[in-house]
């Protein structure tokens, strides 16, 4: 058949630039023509741009079935500088296409959802004009993320890496004039940007080191940061250098993927609209760090110390963030810490060399965490609709009086929503069970693969991860019970309304993916691992490839984690259903807001305040830095440079120089000459005018004397 010939020839590979071009075209249309188009047209263009990108990714995926080795496609020569040659080169292989499929697929679903969500959000925040801006940023993000995942060299990857950081900043502070004190959202965006700069610094140092040590080894001495070149040459570089490169790269990973110690920006990033949290801060951008480690597997497998560090960072983050998520009340903050925790799982997996397991969890996590965030957005808007309705009903409004500062994201204000928002309830439940790791949903398979790998590769990581998995199930249970079960704890929650179909349909699709996604890598078939092995095993063969690819399903681990997850959910049910009902009988002022608080007390406060990490960083870094900035601004710049150097030294020095030139030199010397001449002639004239007596006889006398002299002279001369 014709089609199969095309597929087998791999011609589709040449379409790869269009995964970037389509979103760019979409955003350009929306920038230049969007002003005259309605919301529906703008949304359609944006969704279409993202959707076409996804179609290209699917075609590339199909083509890869015939040519699993993939190819790299140099597109443009970007910078040629001595021994450095940077190209806009695209790479099509199983790893990059996996990421493209996630970014394009989940991205398109979130775009469609966002059309419905932003329609209400811009009205709720009373600026409908910002609808277009949102989708321009959204398409820009898809373009930048596609650049990141389709790059064939570290520098092009870095362009995408910075591009998604920019979009993250723009979208976190999308409602920049809102938030705490009217500046909270802007501060959150700034924080995300600055914390990411620290990570990017690590990435850049790694790139510089790479250039310094790989360039002399490269063919013809021309180095292009090409992934294959780096992978092939890595074994010729001293291991200590590879260790430094990988550890600096780890710093970049901790920034972008919100790992310890740079995770603090992600919870604040929830200030952005919910589709942003789903797309950027859960499904795609934050996984870039995991992708980077998987992409650099050739270097990481060479230095077990670095791998160990990556695994430890991931595992500790997974555990640490999971504990914080236990005690959050903001529905999105719980999911944010959950994201950090799940990213920890992925980082730990790729750190241990279980690249396929990490990537598998990345994809599954993209499904169910995007689902959870979008459902949370649906819940929040449902409650906002309830609040709106309550505000228009005078009877109900009276009962709302004590809730002037109503927070539609606070789970303490929710409850009983399963009756009001049926679709959202069901998809949320599926997402939560998938995240908790209940068989046979997506999270079960991917998480258990990581746990199974960890149980053989690194026992310490395994213990941390299994505790984190337990907490995961617990906080998801807590969230579901608090939000959807029990009685409504506020009037808006009692009047919440279901979201429109444009929002619920993408949720249902994501829920479906969260249910069946796990079968992509079903044990004994390991389709996904085999798929990725075309890329990862090919490069690591001979190193530790065989071990990394082992992949596995350990029935003991699986049963243990399922039992723990079910136990955690039961515990959550006991605390948040039974105990909460019992506590309802207590008077309002004695009733704790969370049953867990009455059990673990101070520890709960510690968790609720996120271990005071933000305050600690503020004290350790921000305050001294602000002090230093103030010192530099006021003392060094203002007092020294401005007041002393400019005003005293320069201005006064110049003033005295001009005074010197004007006074003694110009007035004294130059003018002195002219004045001396003038005065001299004046004096001469004064003296000589006296000769003019005006008396005729005097003149006659002088003529007479003159004649005598002349005659006398003539006589003497002639005589």
């Amino acid at each position, binding site marked *: 058949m014709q089609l199969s010939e095309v597929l087998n020839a791999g011609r589709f590979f040449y379409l790869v630039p269009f995964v970037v071009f389509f979103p760019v075209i979409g955003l350009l249309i929306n920038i230049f023509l969007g002003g005259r188009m309605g919301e529906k047209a703008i949304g359609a263009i944006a969704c279409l741009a993202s959707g076409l990108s996804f179609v290209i990714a699917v075609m590339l995926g199909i083509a890869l079935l015939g040519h699993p080795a993939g190819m790299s496609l140099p597109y443009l020569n970007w910078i040629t500088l001595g021994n450095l040659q940077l190209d806009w080169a695209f790479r099509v292989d199983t790893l990059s296409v996996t990421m493209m499929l996630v970014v394009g697929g989940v991205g398109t679903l979130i775009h469609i959802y966002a059309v419905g969500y932003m329609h209400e959000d811009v009205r709720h925040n009373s600026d409908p004009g910002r609808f277009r801006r949102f989708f321009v940023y959204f398409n820009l993000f898809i373009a930048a993320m596609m650049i990141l995942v389709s790059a064939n060299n570290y520098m092009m990857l870095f362009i995408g890496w910075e591009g998604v950081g920019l979009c993250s900043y723009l979208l976190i502070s999308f409602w920049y004039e809102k938030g705490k004190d009217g500046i909270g959202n802007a501060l959150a965006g700034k924080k995300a940007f600055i914390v990411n700069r620290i990570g990017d610094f690590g990435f850049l140092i790694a790139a510089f080191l790479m250039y310094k040590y790989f360039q002399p080894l490269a063919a013809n001495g021309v180095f292009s940061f090409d992934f294959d070149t780096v992978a092939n040459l890595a074994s010729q570089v001293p291991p200590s250098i590879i260790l430094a490169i990988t550890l600096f790269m780890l710093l970049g990973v901790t920034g972008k993927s919100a790992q310890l110690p740079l995770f603090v920006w992600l919870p604040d990033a929830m200030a952005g609209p919910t589709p942003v949290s789903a797309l950027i801060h859960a499904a795609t951008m934050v996984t870039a760090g995991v992708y980077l480690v998987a992409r650099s597997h050739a270097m990481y497998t060479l230095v077990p110390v670095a791998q160990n560090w990556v695994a430890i960072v991931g595992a500790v983050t997974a555990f640490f963030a999971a504990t914080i998520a236990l005690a959050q009340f903001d529905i999105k903050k719980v999911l944010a810490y959950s994201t950090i925790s799940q990213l920890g799982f992925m980082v730990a997996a790729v750190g241990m060399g279980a690249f396929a397991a990490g990537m598998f969890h990345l994809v599954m996590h993209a499904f169910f965490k995007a689902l959870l965030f979008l459902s949370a957005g649906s819940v929040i808007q449902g409650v906002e609709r309830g609040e709106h309705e309550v505000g228009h009903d005078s009877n109900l409004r009276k009962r709302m009086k004590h809730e002037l500062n109503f927070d539609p994201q606070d789970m303490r204000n929710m409850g009983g929503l399963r009756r009001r928002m049926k679709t959202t309830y069901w998809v949320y439940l599926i997402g939560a069970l998938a995240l908790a790791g209940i068989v046979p949903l997506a999270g079960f398979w991917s998480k258990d693969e990581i746990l199974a790998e960890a149980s053989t590769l690194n026992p310490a990581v395994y213990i941390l991860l299994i505790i984190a998995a337990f907490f995961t199930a617990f906080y998801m249970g807590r969230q579901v019970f608090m939000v959807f079960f029990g009685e409504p704890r506020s009037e808006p929650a009692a009047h919440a309304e279901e979201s429109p179909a444009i929002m619920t349909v993408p949720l249902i699709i994501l829920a479906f993916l969260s249910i069946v996604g796990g079968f992509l890598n079903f044990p004994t078939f390991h389709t996904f691992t085999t798929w990725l092995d075309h890329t990862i095993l090919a490069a690591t063969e001979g190193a530790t490839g065989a071990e990394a690819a082992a992949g596995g399903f350990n029935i003991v681990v699986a049963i243990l984690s399922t039992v723990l997850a079910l136990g955690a959910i039961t515990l959550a049910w006991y605390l948040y259903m039974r105990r909460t009902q019992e506590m309802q009988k207590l008077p309002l002022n004695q009733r704790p807001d969370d049953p867990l608080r009455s059990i673990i007390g101070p520890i709960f406060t510690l968790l609720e305040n996120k271990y005071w990490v933000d305050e600690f960083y503020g004290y350790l870094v921000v305050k001294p830095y602000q002090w230093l900035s103030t010192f530099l601004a006021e003392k060094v710049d203002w007092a020294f440079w401005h007041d002393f150097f400019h005003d005293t030294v320069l201005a006064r020095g110049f003033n005295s120089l001009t005074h010197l030139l004007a006074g003694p030199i110009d007035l004294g010397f130059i003018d002195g000459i002219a004045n001396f001449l003038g005065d001299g002639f004046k004096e001469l004239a004064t003296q000589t005018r*006296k000769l*003019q*007596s*005006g*008396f005729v*006889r005097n003149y006659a*006398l002088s003529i007479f004397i003159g004649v005598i002299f002349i005659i006398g002279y003539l006589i003497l001369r002639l005589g």
Partner: protein
Amino acid sequence: MLPVNYYLGLAIILFTLGALGVLIRRNAIVIFMSIELMLNAANLAFVAYARYWQSMNGQIFVFFIMTVAAAEVAIGLALIVTIFRTKASIDVDQISTLKG
């Protein structure tokens, strides 16, 4: 015939009287007359030498001098009359407006 030296001596005396008159006297008319005296002293010297040398040149000079003197008198007296009209005096010491 008297030698030419006597004539010259008289011319010198006349000239000296004229010069002194110009330098000493303050009346413009007198100064004017003194100038005439000097001119005539020169005339006398001219005619004396003309006779001495038997030449007509000197006598021709005298005629020219007399002509010039006549013109001078016409202008000079006119000036004096004008000065007198403005200053009501012909004392040359009073006319010192050109004093520097």
